[in-house]
Structure formats: C-alpha cells, structure tokens
C-alpha cells in the first residue's frame, strides 16, 4: 500500500491558503495529523473547514502553500491519495437511484472491487452501522440518521487510511446524533485516522483527541480539548446576567477580584468570568457589592467558552 510510505504524519499542511476570487477563505494554516488520531477542526459556518476538506480530496486545489496527504502532495497525486481516503460529506451524497446494498457495491467498484469481493464486506459494514435489515431499502425510505450512517458505511468500503467526516451530524436530531457518535467511536477504536470538522462542541469533545479552533480562515489555537478548556477557560465559568451598565460592572469586578479569574468576556448583557478559584466565593463577593444581577450560573467550563473567548462570538448558531 502506498499509504504506508508516510511516516506517521497523515496530513501535513504548511502555509496553506485558498482564495476564491478576491476572498481568501483559508489564510495560511499549518496542520499536522498523526496516524491513528481523531483530529477535529472546530469552527463556525464559513470558517474554512469544508474548504480544507475539499482541498484534501481534490475538489479545490490550494492557491498556495503545501498540503501533503499520506505523504503525497495533493497536486498531481489525487488518484493515489483518493484510493486511501474515505469521505463523508456534509450533505448526503448517497446515490438515490440505487438501493442501500447497491450504493455500497457500486461504490466498491469505483475502488476496483468486484461485487463478489465486496459483498461480504458490505454486509459487515451494514451490520456495524446498524443497517443489516436495510440491504434492499431505497434511499428515500431511510431516516436522516440512517442515511448518515449509510454514508459512513460507504466511506469505509475501501478500508481507508484516512476517514474525513465533514460535519457528520449536522441536521440530525439529538438521538440520531448520539447514535452516529457511538458508531464513530467504534470506528475510532479500529485506529483509523479521522479528520472531523464540526461546529458542535460536544461532538468535538467526545470524539477528538486533538483539535484546532478555526475562525475566518485562520487557526486560533490547537491542542487536546481538555487542555484547551483549562488553558483558556479554567475549570469553571460564572455567567452573570446584568440588568444595567454591564461594562462598568465588568471593570469593577475585574479590578477587585482579578486574582480569582483568568479573564472575562462581555456578550450583550451577559458577563462570563473564567475562574481560577472557587466560584461560590466570587459569587458571594459580587452579591455583596449589590451588583444588578438578573441571573447567575456557575458551571464547568467547556469548549464553547474557549471559542467564545478566542473569537468573541458564539459557535453553535443552529441550536
């Protein structure tokens, strides 16, 4: 397998840029994804996530910089690279002229596998994705979650060295989403390298070993999800709703209790304190100042806080 030539670095991007006309959507990013890890690209819609994915499988050639996939430059090695890729795209690109089994068998042919070779594997994949009894179903008879699982099954047909999942659970209901996560975790156990783009923080936290946070075509930070949360947002967050003069109170509280927090952020009339110490102590202090608080919430920090702090905006626009 050509895929074994690379030395553990499955994706390597250096100074990668992409321009569409005048608009630069990927603005000089560096990425390194190692063999066997699940690597996440977290960012809002329009951050440039899908563009990176398209550059990997050749739908969008880089404007400048280098992009190596499985040790091969994406310019000029598309076919060789794609032999070792599995792609689950954002929209379901299932073949609705074909039934479930045919979708997998016809796809296997694109990788040069005859139905006699692929059929046992097709059955195995459908079982893995909980679709065994759907072999002859038409695509339009499947629910959104089933379709997505079928897309994932299809992307595994060539036993890929790199599985690309572009927003794998966007548009699914919470139950279907959880089921997809469960299946992706079982794929992860097989040590397949995964590149996952998402704007769901929970998804990134659950699945990714390492991730980058992207906004507006650049990478803001990189690391293990728990490490990133701790680094930027500490252990806990105190969220306050302020009835009046939010800026004044932000400055006031920051000045008085600076040592109890790693920083603060004001979004509308909501004030977020990223805590060093005990949140309850700070909350008592704030109440003793007669701060005009409409609500308060003391909770563990999460990736949303990291994103909010790094970009000043909310990530999950859908929910």
């Amino acid at each position, binding site marked *: 397998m050509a895929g074994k030539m690379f030395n553990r670095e499955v994706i390597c991007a250096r100074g990668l840029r992409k321009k569409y006309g005048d608009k630069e959507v990927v603005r000089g990013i560096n990425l390194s994804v190692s063999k066997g890890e699940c690597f996440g690209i977290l960012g809002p819609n329009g951050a440039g996530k899908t563009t990176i994915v398209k550059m990997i499988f050749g739908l969008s050639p880089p404007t400048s910089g280098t992009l190596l996939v499985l040790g091969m430059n994406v310019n000029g090695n598309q076919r060789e690279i794609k032999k070792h*890729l599995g792609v689950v*795209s954002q*929209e379901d*690109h299932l073949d609705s002229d074909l039934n479930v089994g045919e979708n997998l068998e016809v796809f296997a042919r694109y990788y040069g596998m005859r139905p006699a070779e692929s059929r046992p594997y097709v059955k195995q994949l459908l079982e893995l994705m909980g679709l065994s009894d759907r072999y002859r179903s038409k695509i339009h008879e499947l629910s959104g979650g089933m379709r997505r699982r079928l897309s994932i099954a299809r992307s595994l047909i060539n036993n890929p060295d790199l599985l690309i999942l572009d927003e794998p659970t966007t548009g699914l209901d919470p139950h279907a989403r959880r089921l997809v996560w469960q299946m992706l975790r079982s794929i992860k156990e097989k040590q397949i390298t995964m590149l996952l783009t998402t704007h769901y923080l929970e998804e990134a936290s659950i699945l990714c070993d390492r991730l980058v946070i992207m906004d507006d075509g650049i990478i803001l930070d990189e690391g293990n999800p728990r490490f990133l949360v701790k680094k930027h947002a500490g252990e806990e967050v105190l969220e306050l709703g302020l009835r009046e003069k939010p800026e004044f109170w932000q400055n006031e509280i920051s000045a008085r209790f600076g040592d109890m927090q790693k920083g603060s952020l004001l979004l509308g009339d909501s004030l977020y304190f990223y805590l060093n110490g005990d949140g309850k102590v700070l909350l008592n202090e704030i109440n003793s100042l007669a701060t005009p608080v409409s609500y308060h919430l003391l909770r563990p920090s999460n990736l949303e806080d990291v994103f909010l702090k790094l970009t000043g905006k909310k990530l999950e626009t859908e929910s």
Partner: protein
Amino acid sequence: MIGKTSFLYKYRPELSMLFWEVFRRNMIVFNKYWFSNIMFNFLEPLLYLLALGIGLGLYIPEIEGLSYLEFISPGILASSAMWATSFECTYNSFIRLQVQKTYHAIVSTPVSLDEIVMGDIAFGAFKSMFYGSIFLVVLFFLGYISSPLALLVPVVLILSGVVFAQLSMIWTSVAPNMELFSYYFTLFITPMFLFSGIFFPIENMPIFVQRLAWFTPLFHSVQICRGLITGQFDPLLWANLLVLILFAAILFFPPLILMRRRLIK
C-alpha cells in the same frame, strides 16, 4: 515541454478504464427503468412515423425512388436516437450533477471527474444505440429494411450518440439551472430534427440551409442510416461518416474541461 502552470497541464485528461464503472453504474439504474422509459423513447417516434408516413404519405409521391414512409423511417430512427441521448445527457446528467450530487460522491473515489463525464457520454451513446436499434427491429418487421447493410446502423448510432452526448454535456456543464435545457432543445435539437433531411430532402432548401445542414451531426447520421437501410449506398456517405468522426474528435475535450471548470474551484 508543458509548464506546470499552463492551461494544457492543468486540463490534461485523467482517463483510465475506470470510466467504465460510471457507465456500469448508469446501466444498473437503466436496468430498473428502461421499460418504463420505452414510451417516450420509442412510442413517440413510432407515432411520428405512422402519422406522417401513412397519413401525410398518402398525398406525397415518391421521394428519391422511395415511398414517403420508407423515406422518413431511417431519419426518424436516427432522430429518436438523438432525442434519447440528448435527454439523458442534459436532464439526467444534470440531476446527477446538481441535484443528487452523484458526481461529487464519485469524485471522492479514485474515479476522476473526466472519467465521470466519459462514463456519462458512453452511456448516452449506449442509449442512442439501444433505442435506435429497437426501432430498427420494428422497421424490419414492418418490412422497411431493404438491405443487410442495416446491420451496421447500431454502429453509426453509437458514433452519432457520442457526438450528441458530447454536445449535451457541454450544455449541462455550463447550465446554471434546469430551466435552461429547454433552450437547448428549442434552439438546437428541434431545428436539427426539422431541417436535417428527415421529412424532406434538403436539396430543395435554400443553399444556406443546405450548407448549415453539413454542420449538424444529425444530418450526417440521417444520411448514413438511410443509405444503410434502403441499400442506396452513395460513396458520399463516407464523407458523412468522416464528418461525424471529426465532430467526435473536436468535441472530445470541451465537455471534460468545462465540467472541471464547473466543479473544481
């Protein structure tokens, strides 16, 4: 030497036998629906043949030594093949490209976009051959085949099918939406259907119409089919064949390049 930034390098074709798998994918779908599509692809030309050949034919004396029905039947055969291919490579290809995103899915596999387009063109040519040949069989049973040369008609239909598929794919690769296909049919396919010597010899038309006919693939395919079916073999038919081959050669790259420009950005 071709520089890596040049147009020729950028659009060098990426073709292998994998295009065959795209053709095969279309065949799997075809096997499910061919019978229900027969109405449009086969019954409609048959109605033309009967209405014009028998109805109008009563009032028309012989043309070039043939009864009117004999005269028009090879042309209707050739045009029915054209219609079948043109619908396949416009509406159906566009649905695969833009609606179902079948192309997007396939292009993430080792199959190249060039091979997808080639696969669709090959399938368009197959449809030309298939529906044209069914018509040929009917003509045989109606007793309108006068020469064993008619056995070569399917080969001609493959060649003309390639040309119509290429032309349709060019339109498909630049059309922003499906509404624009009616322009392709109204401005291009229907005039060809009417003025390619199917219903009347173009020798009596104004000279510019005759000249124009030489630049349309249907005219040549009608001429060759008529020669083969009636057995009135004119050496000029070699010229018609050569023109069809030239069309196919000239139109080889444009659909590949245009589809890449559409999809790979």
